[in-house]
């Protein structure tokens, strides 16, 4: 067998894990698990400020292998300089009893606005990410994760 192929280095993963652990500040709390209502509530949290699509790469599986530990990676396009960087990424799961799942906080010293962790999802739902930029602008994206009991294969 050939050596393992790794696209993300161990050091990187450790770094991300440490970062995720360090950000214990949870996204502002919401409590309604309804897709439309959650979307409206998220808008309110940011004073109804305009949110642009794009810049965030939200990597979640289309189908969760295990709803208890669903991997999530966010990666925001940014030069990460003192003048222009990503301050934070907030993640919401619109089907969770408490949709605010986590917040990753960054500084120019982060070098890259990228982080990974795992979250628990009980059912099929949308994951919404909101990135706060240093100039106060907001970016958002969403992706659906299907949580299934399966079905037996060929």
């Amino acid at each position: 067998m050939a050596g393992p192929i790794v696209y993300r280095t161990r050091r990187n993963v450790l770094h991300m894990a440490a970062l995720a652990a360090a950000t214990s500040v949870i996204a502002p709390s919401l409590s309604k698990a309804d897709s439309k209502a959650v979307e409206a509530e998220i808008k309110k949290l940011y004073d109804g400020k305009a949110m642009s699509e794009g810049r965030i790469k939200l990597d979640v599986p289309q189908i969760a292998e295990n709803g208890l530990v669903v991997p999530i990676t966010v990666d925001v396009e940014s030069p990460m300089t003192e003048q222009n960087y990503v301050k934070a990424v907030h993640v919401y799961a619109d089907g969770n009893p408490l949709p605010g799942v986590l917040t990753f906080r960054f500084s120019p010293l982060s070098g890259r606005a990228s982080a990974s962790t795992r979250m628990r999802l009980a059912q099929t739902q949308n994951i919404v990410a909101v990135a706060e930029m240093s100039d106060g602008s907001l970016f958002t994206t969403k992706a659906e994760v299907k949580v299934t009991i399966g079905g037996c294969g060929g």
Partner: protein
Amino acid sequence: MISRRHFLHATAAAHALAVASGLGPLGRAAAQQRLSEQDILRFEPLGQVTILHVTDIHAQLMPLYFREPSINLGVGPAKGKPPHLTDQAFRDHFKVGGGTAEAHALTADDFTQLARTYGRMGGMDRVARLISAVRAERGADKVLLLDGGDTWQGSWTALQTRGDDMVQVMNALGVEAMTSHWEFTYGEDRVKELAEKSKAAFLAQNVRDNEWQEAVFEPRKTFEKGGAKIAVIGQAFPRTPIANPRWMIPKWEFGLREEDIQKQVDEARAEGADVVILLSHNGFDVDAKLATRVNGIDVILTAHTHDAMPGVVTAGRTILVASGSHGKFISRLDLDIRDKKVSGYRYKLLPVFSDAITPDPSMAGLIDAIRKPFAAELAQEIGRTESLLFRRGNFNGTFDDLIAQAMLAERDAEIALTPGFRWGATLLPGDPITFDAIANATAITYPACYRMEMTGAQLKDVLEDVADNIFHPDPYFQGGGDMVRVGGVGYAIDVSAPMGRRISDLTLLKTGRPLEASKAYTVAGWASVNQGTQGPPIWDVVKSHVARHKTIRIEPNAAVKVTGA
């Protein structure tokens, strides 16, 4: 090279799929006749390289009958297109004459009659003979033999030797690379052990350890054949931990990992590959979509959905091959490579008609040796069937009806659930039901036949969930397999409706009354993916039911009403 004349454009498809058809000389020679070994092997060689592909053998060492589906619905972009064609529509599309040997091999209608005319198919000694013949004709150094997986599971000998018998057989066959799905149901340690013992490279770019996200298996391997460099990327079944017990492979993660396939293709090209092959266990529709999204794959050898097509499908520059299952077929694909590109190809699906092919003596000897310790057990005649017992079909199969009836009776349940597996041999009316035959439909490593209470609402949820895994219009959400079979209950299904709204009119057949959402019913089932499931193994349940009745007769099943197809 396939000429323009040989191209039949499927439609102006969303996927831009086109179909190249024709059985070549075989189709014309064969009308109403048995084929000879020469007819089966006849092929005008092309280019420098021959790819041979076998897949989804499901541990079937011996010749068997295997009825293809009469209902195989495609949804979304796949609707009405190959491989989602059956019977007359299939024969019309691929120019197969009714009543011919090929019609018997590839379609379901008139199955019993044609089976009596043309005999069994498959048998690994026959497969070995054909492969040796192609190697001899072409030159062994020009032939690459690949296995798409679902090889180590599906028979009593495979279960008892925990896959070892199939590794011996495939080693003897000279398989050079394989990928995997049901293999994983032997658990992490055993899979690693057998992957070591296997002479075939065990390739799976999409299996990662879930702590470090490192590749568990070699993602790809390059072979030199006929002076060309052929890169083979392995793709295991992406949904293994959902469709099969995750607890058996707790440290491994799967998934489609499309971007990583692209990286593998790009790396292979950068290393000078002339040809890039994806040896896939994704399932046909998933691969048809993937071919339009990943650049630079020359050939996708598809598997999992058990489709057998006597012609390739193309999507852009990518050729998709579907080689059937159970050792019924071998795909031969000759490639003409010029300037590091596939400039032409020729394809034939070789049907393995057991009666026409001389068994390879050394493989026959190995099979005898493997089966000998179990011979008495396997040969045990439990009963006989008066009906055709088959499995394939989107909603039911008579063999599954038998399993469901056995569970209802032996486990004293109101409702029975039996999985929509696509593997398992067919029995003809009048055939003995041996223990071998029962095991061929049930031999898995998580066989417990449970008995539990489930409400009407829970049952509907299960059916909705499984239906979404089959009829989701986006192939990337399809898991392969067929609808879970339900004993004791009838229902209506609108396959074109969205998730949660496909299933209606759930009726308890015994009383003719609607299933009540909040009422609890006694349900028996098997193949639960949950750890610690209790109950007797399903083969014992079926065995005692058949032994009690001796003669099995299955009436046509009209309990599922299908719309939206």
